[in-house]
């Protein structure tokens, strides 16, 4: 099958977008690497503190006018952005594959999910409405309006370089705020493409800014008195740091962290559909997502276990690995060599702790002529116990740890012992089991016969325990609430 054309040509330098201008950073320059080919495809700046200050200043200056722009007019900017994203759907999808490594199906899926958030935010004239009650006392009325706050910082992770900033940014600007987005420096081209379309859509200067970089930019956002709040998605340790810093500086925050999701398999599940769901859950995006399955917890006797695991192992061993722009490929590379080394460390750890490596992802074939530098095959560990490191810690790679339970009760106990609560799921044909699971499991997102429990744009992306800190979430109504303050007015006329 032919490899699709790559959209990023040459080795372009990513620039910052501040106050409606493309600005070259004064910071040091880092390579952006296509992990499938292990070649440099671009350069990204690690911007300075001054540059984040400049972006925040521009956003602060743009805020008063943008706030006064009517919600209907703000929605029209978003409608234009949505149209431009649709027109550029294929290109932005290929950019994601080229810079991140995921398959083209996964990139197109990511693009669709991102656009859906823009679509939902287009409903802001309705979403931002307040409420009122007349005659709360004689001749006195009371009403609530949702007002924007100013400037928000949005910090995106490497694993969904296009979609995740769109969980927040469209709602922030739709409600009348201005944003400064910091994309992951590992794959900054997706956000670059979005902001090119933001510019084309005609957003006023300063409303939507992008500053590339790393820790200095993040710290600059966290410490800047002009930033009212932060929306962050990343690892749990960083999530805790962000939450703490936002507490210290009085910022509101959405902080989404890591996960260790359990897929609980009941003996009455639809085996064919469940096995397919396991493939995408554990190995989709090469395991690099906070909603990936990590622990497969099989309930039932030896006969069911053996039969189910034989099918899982067979399907896993047939996964086609290669460059995501080849449409026949089912799993791409990891984002970089450091991540691969980290996962290899977990495989060693599993072996040391006595788990059985049924499928060794260190041995694999790549479709096409690509270096194996960032590639790793899917692994399956059996005989895993809940105390093992591979069952407790987030591996963030294509490694399935298989545990067993005698009953649903035992399975729920094992799941709830986990430190994370992001996207646990059950596979069953029993409504009773499903209801019991969703009721008792401590997880922000719960799947019933769904392997990737990704809430749609009109629902919040939830999370519990070490997977989330904050109160309100990204996406939908909750994002609108996060990016606005409730102003309550009590009025009386003499």
């Amino acid at each position, binding site marked *: *099958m032919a490899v699709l054309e790559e959209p990023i040509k040459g080795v372009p330098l990513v620039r910052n977008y501040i106050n409606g201008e493309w600005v070259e950073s004064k910071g040091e320059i880092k390579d952006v690497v296509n992990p499938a080919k292990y070649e440099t495809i671009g350069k990204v700046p690690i911007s300075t503190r001054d540059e984040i200050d400049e972006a925040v200043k521009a956003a602060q200056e743009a805020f008063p006018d943008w706030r006064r722009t009517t919600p209907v007019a703000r929605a029209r900017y978003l409608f234009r952005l949505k149209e431009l994203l649709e027109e550029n759907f294929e290109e932005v999808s290929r950019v994601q594959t080229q810079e991140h490594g995921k398959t083209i*199906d996964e990139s197109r*899926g990511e693009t*669709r999910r991102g656009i859906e958030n823009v679509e939902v935010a287009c409903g802001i004239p309705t979403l931002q409405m307040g409420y009122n009650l007349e005659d709360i006392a004689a001749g006195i009325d009371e009403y609530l309006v949702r007002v924007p706050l100013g400037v928000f910082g949005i910090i995106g992770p490497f694993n969904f370089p296009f979609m995740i900033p769109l969980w927040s940014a469209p709602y922030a600007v739709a409600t009348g705020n201005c944003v400064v987005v910091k994309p992951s420096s590992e794959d900054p081209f997706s956000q670059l493409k979005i902001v090119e379309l933001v510019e084309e859509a005609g957003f006023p200067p300063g409303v939507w800014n992008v500053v590339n970089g790393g820790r200095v930019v993040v710290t600059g956002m966290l410490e800047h008195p002009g930033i009212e709040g932060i929306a962050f998605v990343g690892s749990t340790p960083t999530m805790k740091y962000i939450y703490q810093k936002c507490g210290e500086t009085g910022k509101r925050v959405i902080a989404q962290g890591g996960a260790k999701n359990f897929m609980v398999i009941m003996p009455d599940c639809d085996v064919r559909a469940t096995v397919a769901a396991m493939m995408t859950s554990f190995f989709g*995006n090469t395991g690099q997502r906070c909603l990936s399955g990590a622990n497969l917890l099989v309930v039932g006797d030896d006969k069911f276990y053996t039969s189910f695991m034989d099918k899982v192992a067979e399907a896993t061993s047939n996964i086609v690995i290669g460059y995501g722009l080849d449409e*026949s490929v*089912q799993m791409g590379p990891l984002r970089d060599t450091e991540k691969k080394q980290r996962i290899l460390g977990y495989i060693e750890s599993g072996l040391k702790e006595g788990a059985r490596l049924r499928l060794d992802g260190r041995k694999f074939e790549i479709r096409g002529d690509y270096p194996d530098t960032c590639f790793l095959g899917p692994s399956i560990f059996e005989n895993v116990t809940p105390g093992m490191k591979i069952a407790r810690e987030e591996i963030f790679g294509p490694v399935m740890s298989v545990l067993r339970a005698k009953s649903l009760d035992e399975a729920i106990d094992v799941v709830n012992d986990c430190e994370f609560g992001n996207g646990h799921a059950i596979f069953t044909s029993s409504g009773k089991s499903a209801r019991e699971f969703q009721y008792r499991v401590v997880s922000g997102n719960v799947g019933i016969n*769904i392997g*990737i429990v*990704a809430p749609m744009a009109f629902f919040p992306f939830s999370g519990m325990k070490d997977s989330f800190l904050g109160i309100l979430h990204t996406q939908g109504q909750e994002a609108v609430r996060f990016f606005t303050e409730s102003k309550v007015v009590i009025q009386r006329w003499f």
Partner: protein
Amino acid sequence: MRLQTASSVISLARELEGESAKFYEDLAQRFAEGEDTFLSFAKENRKYIVQIERAYYGVITDAIEGCFAFDIESDDYAIETALAEKTGYSDALSQAIEMEETVVKFYTDAAEQSKSLMADVPRAFMLIVRKRNDRLAKLRSL
């Protein structure tokens, strides 16, 4: 080649529609008695491509099993679209019928495999199956 991803199956559908459209355009040029019918088939084929792509791009998300929803052997659905120089009208119709049967089988199999995994795509496939079955009836009546 074994196709397991949604994008590769969509590409195969695109290829089948494109090739069969060209085939009908060729028939229309060579057989005046069926020109209008063949041209309308070619036009429909191009519309089917749009419908399939719209369904796919509309529902492909990272939450569904896009990379694992199919198990299609593309060689099983190879179609013969080249017409020999001396092919008569009746043989050409037989070739068209054979081609349509193969394409119907492709869409039916692909829809069946993906019906619980791919949201609107199997429905789009089955809609084309229905229309193509009507087309088969028409071809057989010519």
